[in-house]
């Protein structure tokens, strides 16, 4: 362990260490300096454009675009056939931006697949790009361009392209950087000895506080990863470090190297008080901070710096290293002769493994100070910053050991660290080649990491990670499988069947999988049959149907929509068909789909009555056509002729439908309408729209007995109805004379009880009594009761010897007033019993 801090380099109050991430075996023949290089942040891929310069062309070598993992494994390459590239850069979603001299930007994916392109505008096209920068802000990925005419043009988000042309500047800048502050993108540039801040409206001169007055022209500048820090390098080798707002100076340093550095980047970690900048010259790497000293490394090879959130990655043709500031926890534990609780705990655990009683001494020392939980936390935290699994393990073991001696120490942090480290170790493997530090990982989040694995087509690793971290299927496995399937459908060498089967086998009915999305992808690749096969697996009809329509499989879409039972879907398809097909075809399609047809009819009933008629016609549905005319005779036709002719059409249709009853009824209706109309003319009174019954009733009410008689005969009104109708109307009219006459006209088909009832309804007992005698014997009791003659009722009941009737009469009697009758009935009852 003594050598553990061997690669620690002190600078000011903190230590820095540089260690190997990978040894690069990418067999580069070219020198890095001859390539255009773009390494992605967060352990992203490295893009190289070889032979890019115009000079190269003369040598006959074609430019080649190659993409490697951070560990130097080739991912893809293509010969570059487009224009002159000025700058390469990665977006936050790991797409490669190739900025060409003419201002057009081509976007490629990790596998050199062309995605799209956009232009930085006409002005850039005319004046050509001198320099370009790709930058990342909370809005996404942006591009800034400096043209030959010394104008800046930039966009803050390439996915929502808004080009902004910046104001004029005094002349070509010696160095510049994109600055993002207060949600605005600005450009900081130097022109000779002056420093300017360029925003959308103005260009203002800035003077960094505490700037050495002797410092000459600005040669280089660097903005930190989080846009908060700014470093400036001036002619005599003077380095100024301060806040990017130019309000505060942290440190300065004199490197006494007058040459402009090849790269200058910040090397600091979040929330650190220490600010340090790494500068690189041909053979020298220098780290300067708040100290007059500096750390210097000799470089054997041409190298390249990649600023990261918490340090700097340095890669060359053979190595890939990480330079970073040692964190507090690590320093406390490993500093030589440290007595920090974490250090003691680590020691205690080691002694414990050796079965030495010293373990107890160390432990006691920590516990006595009450710092055990702090010690455990320290060990867990430090484990996160270690690259080597062995070291991680030993720190975690110490944490686990210490944890045993604390009551109620929440295991969450420990468990989380263990599982996350396992994931990190897996992706740091050189086969995968994503050298994420723990700090970067936390910033990036697991979801984004999974996305990046998916982008690299590392589906199985991504799924294993999801399973291991127990992410919900919905946001984890399902999403990955869906991506896999979308990739799968693009494999042109496999048959539709094979692919559909393979996809279904893998995906099954995993929740959250959208087969329709995969099918849409297949459709986009021009594989119709595959898309349809895949749609078969889609359980949600709502997702199937729109895509089928898009693929012009409207009939299939219609039957799917119907199968879904979702009427809205059916309507969607029907509307689509209506616009797509000619009318005859449209109707024919509907004919075969009764559900759709009935839905469309419903719609037509409200919106397009004429279409409805056409539909019935097409269908030879004469019954419905008859109904249709019938309805229109009552709703849309106002004039009598119109109504009659509508009804006549109905009759025709009904007769075609062989519905005799409806025919007859409608004919009667026409007859009724005509007669009512005639009545209206004659009597100047409204009869229209009355039923036959009401018409005749009204005629009787108005004393038109012969007219009523005429209707009775004309329509063959059943006798019973006519009698009921006539006597109730006469009673209402109180035409007792006519009633009596009528009662004697012939034998009543409804008997005479109704006469009694009707008279009593008008409270005319006198008239009622006239008919009682004529009531049939079996109803006579009821008629006596109706007229209120209980005595007679009793008599009649007794005469009939009918017990039920007697009970009925009894129930109508009031004991006080009708005692005589009651007695009479009781007597009769007993007599019946005797018999």
């Amino acid at each position, binding site marked *: 362990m003594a050598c553990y801090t061997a690669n620690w380099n002190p600078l000011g109050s903190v230590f820095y260490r540089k260690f190997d991430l990978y040894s690069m075996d990418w067999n580069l023949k070219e020198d890095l300096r001859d390539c255009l290089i773009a390494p992605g942040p967060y352990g992203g891929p490295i893009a190289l454009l070889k032979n890019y310069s115009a000079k190269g062309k003369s040598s006959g070598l074609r430019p080649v675009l190659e993409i490697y993992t951070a560990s130097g494994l080739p991912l893809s390459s293509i010969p570059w056939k487009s224009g002159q590239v000025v700058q390469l850069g990665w977006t936050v979603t790991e797409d490669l931006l190739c900025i060409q001299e003419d201002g057009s930007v081509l976007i490629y994916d990790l596998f050199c697949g062309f995605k799209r392109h956009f232009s930085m505008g006409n002005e850039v096209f005319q004046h050509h790009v001198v320099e370009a920068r790709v930058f990342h802000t909370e809005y996404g990925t942006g591009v800034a361009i400096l043209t030959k005419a010394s104008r800046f043009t930039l966009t803050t988000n390439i996915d929502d392209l808004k080009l902004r042309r910046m104001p004029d500047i005094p002349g070509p800048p010696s160095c510049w950087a994109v600055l993002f502050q207060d949600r605005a993108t600005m450009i900081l540039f130097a022109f000779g000895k002056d420093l300017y801040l360029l925003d959308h409206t103005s260009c203002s001169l800035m003077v960094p506080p505490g700037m050495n007055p002797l410092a000459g022209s600005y040669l280089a500048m660097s903005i930190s990863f989080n846009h908060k820090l700014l470093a400036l390098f001036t002619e005599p080798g003077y380095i100024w470090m301060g806040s990017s707002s130019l309000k505060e100076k942290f440190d300065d340093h004199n490197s006494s190297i007058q040459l402009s550095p090849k790269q200058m980047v910040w090397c600091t970690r979040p929330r650190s008080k220490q600010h340090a900048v790494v500068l690189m010259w041909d053979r020298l790497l220098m780290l300067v901070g708040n100290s007059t000293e500096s750390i210097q490394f000799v470089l054997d090879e041409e190298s390249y710096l990649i600023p990261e959130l918490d340090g700097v990655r340095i890669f060359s043709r053979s190595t890939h290293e990480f330079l970073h500031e040692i964190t507090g926890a690590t320093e406390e534990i490993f500093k030589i002769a440290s007595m920090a609780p974490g250090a003691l705990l680590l020691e205690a655990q080691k002694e414990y493994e050796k079965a030495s009683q010293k373990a107890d001494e160390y432990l006691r020392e920590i516990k006595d100070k009450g710092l055990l939980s702090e010690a455990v936390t320290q060990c867990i935290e430090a484990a996160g910053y270690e690259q080597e699994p062995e070291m991680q393990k030993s720190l975690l073991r110490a944490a686990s050991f210490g944890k045993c001696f604390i009551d109620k120490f929440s295991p969450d942090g420990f468990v989380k660290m263990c599982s996350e480290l396992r994931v990190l170790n897996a992706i740091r493997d050189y086969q995968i080649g994503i050298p994420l530090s723990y700090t970067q990982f936390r910033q990036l989040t697991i979801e984004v990491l999974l996305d990046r694995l998916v982008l690299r087509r590392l589906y199985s690793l991504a799924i294993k990670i999801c399973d291991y971290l127990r992410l919900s299927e919905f946001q984890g496995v399902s999403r990955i499988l869906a991506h896999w399937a979308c990739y799968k459908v693009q494999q042109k060498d496999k048959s539709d069947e094979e692919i559909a089967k393979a996809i279904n086998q893998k995906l099954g009915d995993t*929740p959250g999988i959208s087969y329709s999305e995969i099918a849409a992808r297949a459709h986009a690749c021009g594989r119709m049959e595959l898309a349809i096969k895949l749609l078969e697996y889609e359980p949600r009809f709502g997702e199937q149907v729109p895509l089928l329509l898009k693929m012009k499989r409207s009939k299939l879409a219609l039957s799917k929509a119907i199968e879904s*039972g979702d009427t*809205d879907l059916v309507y969607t398809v029907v509307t689509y068909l209506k616009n797509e097909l000619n009318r005859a075809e449209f109707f024919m399609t509907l004919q075969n*789909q*009764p*559900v759709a047809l009935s839905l469309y009819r419903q719609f037509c009933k409200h*919106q397009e009555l004429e279409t409805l008629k056409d539909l019935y016609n097409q269908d030879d549905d004469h019954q419905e056509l008859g109904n249709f005319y019938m309805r229109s005779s009552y709703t849309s036709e106002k004039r009598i002729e119109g109504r009659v002719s509508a009804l006549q059409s109905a009759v025709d249709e009904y007769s075609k439908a062989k519905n005799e009853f*409806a025919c007859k009824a*409608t004919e009667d209706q026409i007859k009724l309408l005509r007669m009512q109309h005639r009545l209206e003319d004659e009597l100047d009174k409204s009869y229209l729209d009355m039923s036959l019954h009401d018409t005749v009733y009204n005629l009787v009410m108005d004393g038109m007995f012969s007219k009523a008689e005429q209707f009775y005969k004309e329509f063959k009104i059943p006798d019973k109805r006519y009698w*009921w109708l006539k006597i109730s109307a006469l009673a209402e009219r109180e035409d007792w004379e006519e009633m009596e006459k009528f009662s004697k006209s012939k034998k009543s088909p409804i008997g005479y009880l109704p006469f009694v009832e009707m008279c009593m309804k008008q409270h005319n007992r006198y008239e009622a009594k006239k008919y009682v005698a004529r009531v049939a014997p079996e109803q006579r009791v009821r008629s006596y009761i109706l007229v209120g003659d209980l005595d007679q009722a009793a008599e009649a009941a007794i005469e009939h010897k009918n017990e039920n009737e007697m009970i009925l009469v009894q129930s109508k009697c009031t004991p006080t007033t009708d005692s005589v009758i009651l007695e009479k009935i009781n007597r009769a009852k007993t007599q019946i019993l005797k018999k």
Partner: protein
Amino acid sequence: MAFSDRRDAPDLPDFALLKRLALDQLIYLLEQLPGKKDLFIEPDLMSPLDRIANVSILKQHEVDKLYKLENKPVYSNSDQLCFLIRPRIKHVKYIAGIVNADKAAKRTRKYKIIFSPLKLYVCDMVLEEQGIFGDVICDEWYFYLLPLDDDIISMELPEFYTDYFLEGDQRWLCTVAKALHVLNSLFGPFTKSYGIGRCAKMVYEMWKDLEDESEGDRKEKRPAVGSIFLFDRDVDYITPLCSQVVYEGLVDDIFRIKCGSVEFGPEVTSSDKSIKVLLNSQDKVFNEIRNEHFSNVFGFLSQKARNLQIQYDKRRGMDIKQMKTFVSQELKGLKQEHRLLSLHIGACESIMKKKTKQDFQDLLKTEHSLLEGFDIRESISFIEEHINRQVSPIESLRLLCLLSITENGLISKDYRSLKTQYLQSYGPEHLLTLYNLKRVGLLTEQVPGDTLTAVESKMSKLVTDKAAGKLSDAFSSLAKKSNFRGLSKKLNLIPHVDGEYDLKIPRDMAYIFSGAYIPLSCKIIEQVLDRKAWTGLEEVIRLLNGNEFADPLSEGSPTSDSQRLILAVFLGGCTFSEISALRFLGKSKGYRFIFLTTAITNSARLLEAVVETSLNVS
């Protein structure tokens, strides 16, 4: 009460949650349109809305004026108009009219349409056709489930019946499936499902699909409701067509209960104004009589009145202190009870006046003989007279339908003559109504021999693939045989009792029809629950035209209380009589039923739904 609670009847889940969910969403939707706005509510949504949010809640969320959506010009000065409607074409057209009128007058306002329970694609089509698609904001208020009472949830979709059973339009099936999904996720998972009817089957399958889709985010929890029973209204038309004689059903038949509340007119309140009363289990008096046969109600009420008097009388001989507690604690309750009691007594008197007449007795007698299948000729002439005397168009239809269904269709001669009579009495345009009745199978002609109806045979030609199979399902529901006699015999629907049926201490569910008939729907549910399957009912299934299903859904411990909680789903409406009957069944077997219905129905509503509507709309 005539029957006592079995001690182990499980508790009901708290459905008030559904109301809170609906209210929260409504408020959210209103807040989405910030600032003062006028709200136009369609008449059919007024009562349901009233049960969810009162005016002051609406005002709190900046609703300025409230209007009923009527086919009239709008005189609103507000710059924001919000419409709360069912997804119907005529409403959308009306709104389009308003928007276009504003456009013509160069007036700019904000318009928002809230569709409840969902927006249909047709609405978009109409908006587009009227050229205002971009001018209005549309939203959906997912208000599927209104708990009317502790055990009744209504979807308040009376048009479900017409749309599905008459027009063969499946637009609401999804909504019902979604409603089941909501209930299942809140109170489930249900362990077992049963059902009968084509619609039930379709809804069930849609619901299962929904469940499968959302399987990912289901959490383990204890189910509150055990089984679910889906029932198509057209499996049993007899029960809703019978005159109701249980108190709650009678009140519904006579005064029309609307969304759980009834408006008692002056003849009941014995004052000159009407009173709106909420009828649910909160009303102590009502709760005790709602399920009783009407003949018991009066006696019960007078007993209650006496008890109340005794309680009032306690006042006498109280000292001041006791009096104080009496006034502060008991008096309010007594007053309340007093008020309700007098209302119900008033209602009873009003019912008595109407129902004890000779006509009503004759009517009941006819109904009973139709159910039993005796004296058919006599019943027919009674119906004929009923029609001839123009007693009531709906009542006449009811009797006609009852006759047709019990007799499995009318013989041709009667069919023609009764229809002619009907047209003569109530107007020839009812030809369309009669045709509609034939379509839904309520009024049919006996077809000798032929078992397949015309529609079905036509359909069967088209049945070529699965999709066509499904759609033919929708259509063959039209006009099918009722086989009532056979069913009645198989299931013993007509109880044979020696002597008089004791309505005070009922023995079976027949009490809800004065002991004359056990409701078919309830009997089927009872039989299936007893067997926990359809096995042994094969003959009954055949008579019911099939489409039964029973499906275990998830594992549940058979002993837990929730297993005896049964969600009875009526597609196309259920009547209060059926609810009373099942409550009775529950009490005698230790089940507890929860009712989910597309709407509360009764004979009048059922028939009015089929009466040709275009005749009333000009």
